[in-house]
């Protein structure tokens, strides 16, 4: 936000503006910037998803809109969704029904405030950054339950209930996996965590010690479940619950659910990048190769690798059942992550 505030100084007669405007304008501008970047990233991710799925399935995917490999297809789809009728079921709880998609999106959106995209491109460096992400990221579950309940549809309700059980269960192993990184850094600030990994690939936490590597896998699996991706997509299990909690949604509100799903994917991928893959830092130490690629782009590339991994998994695996999902969370990931935290702590104390 500081950099945005500095940029705003170039507006003529900026200092003459009222104080309240000067206080709020940087916030507003950074919101808009994040939203725009996120929207573009999501559009790209949707396109990528369609392409990855298509090629795994021996297809080509969208090929027409926009010319080169149908790059504008998702743009066209988004426009179509925005122009569609916004249907509210007759017996729905109208207020909750209308609010739900925005709350789901809010969770994903607000969490980006503390993600450091580059050395100085972050909105705010909260000293409890990680905690903030964990807290705000689970806001979406409230929206999902709201959507499931307010739709007045049994399938939606099932989706909402499943989502609640799943997301809350998987918060625990994912948070514990994050702790393995916080222990060596000793800070909850995202910026500090990235700074601790500066200096090339060998300084990334992913490759620092094997326990953190395993923790990364645990975090990755748990984060898949948190964003309802296959093999953990039971809240919207297409073959069982039609579309789960967003069965009744159409038009723009549906688009917001869609946006939120992919924004959440970006969020967990960003967190994984920041915590384990060194965030915006260079891959090869600066002493060997000059740093040509700017930090934010490097960050984005790393995020893309994780997102590709998520897509790859989605298109090769079947879906778990509800009880198996819970089994995986409580009986596999939780014990493993606890052991990992203890091991990392032991290393931190006795190494």
């Amino acid at each position, binding site marked *: 936000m500081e950099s945005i505030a500095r940029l705003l100084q170039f507006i003529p007669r900026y200092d003459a503006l009222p104080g309240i405007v000067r206080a709020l304008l940087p916030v507003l501008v950074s919101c808009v910037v994040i939203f725009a970047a996120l929207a573009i990233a999501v559009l790209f991710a949707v396109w990528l998803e369609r392409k*990855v799925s*298509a*090629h*795994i*399935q*021996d*297809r*080509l995917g969208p*090929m*027409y809109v926009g010319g080169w490999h149908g790059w504008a297809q998702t743009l066209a789809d988004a426009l179509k969704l925005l122009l569609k009728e916004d249907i509210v079921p007759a017996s729905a709880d109208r207020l909750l029904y209308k609010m739900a998609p925005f709350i789901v999106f809010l969770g994903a959106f607000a969490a980006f405030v503390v993600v450091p995209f580059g050395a100085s491109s972050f909105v705010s460096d909260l000293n409890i950054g990680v905690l903030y992400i964990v807290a705000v990221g689970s806001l979406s579950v409230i929206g999902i339950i709201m959507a499931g309940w307010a739709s007045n549809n049994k399938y939606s309700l099932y989706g909402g209930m499943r989502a609640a059980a799943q997301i809350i269960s998987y918060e625990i192993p994912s948070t514990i996996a994050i702790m393995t990184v916080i222990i060596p850094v000793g800070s909850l600030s995202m910026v500090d965590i990235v700074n601790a990994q500066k200096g090339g690939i060998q300084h990334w936490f992913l490759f620092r010690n094997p326990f953190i590597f395993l923790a990364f896998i645990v975090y990755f699996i748990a984060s898949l479940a948190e964003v309802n991706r296959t093999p953990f997509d039971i809240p919207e299990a297409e073959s069982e619950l039609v579309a789960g909690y967003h069965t009744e949604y159409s038009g723009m509100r549906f688009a917001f659910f869609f946006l939120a799903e992919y924004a959440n994917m970006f969020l967990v991928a960003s967190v994984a990048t920041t915590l384990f893959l060194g965030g915006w830092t260079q891959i090869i130490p600066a002493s060997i190769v000059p740093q040509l690629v700017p930090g934010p782009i490097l960050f984005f590339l790393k995020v893309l690798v994780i997102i590709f991994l998520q897509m*790859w*998994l989605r*298109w*090769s*695996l079947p879906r778990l059942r509800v009880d198996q999902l819970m089994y995986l969370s409580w009986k*596999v990931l939780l014990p493993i992550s606890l052991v990992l935290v203890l091991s990392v702590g032991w290393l931190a104390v006795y190494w």
Partner: protein
Amino acid sequence: MLNYFKNLGLGSVTVLKSMGVAWRHLFTRSVTLQYPTEKWTMPERSRARLFNKIEDCIGCGQCVRACPTNCITIKTEKRGKDEPEIFASDGTAIKLRTLTYDIDMALCCYCGLCTFSCPTHCLTMTGEYEYSVYDKDEHIYHFAEDKLATSKAPKEKVEIA
């Protein structure tokens, strides 16, 4: 306990194997056609839209009897004695004038039984498959109309493809 780790290992290994197969397919050639721009050539035996070469039709009505869904309607009348003899292209004498020969392609079940029963092989199934219309009535093809055109004033809209 042992079972627990065995299951864990088995799960991870098979998941990785699945991912491996999927990964190899990322780089195989796609098998789809880009439909409106690329089209597949239909094999010669393709059974799609019916076509009647009305000049060869002797109006015998075999096709009507063979059709399981009654999608063909024929109306004929005897040709006069004084009219010149005409023959179908395989030499069969045409004794009946076909006044109406309508095929409702919306009813057709594409079984092809009518084409086999046709004695002069004038009723054939073509490979034409793109003929969706906005009105169901447009699926009724009037094949006999151009034959009538000599006796009646020519219609402006000829619906024969």
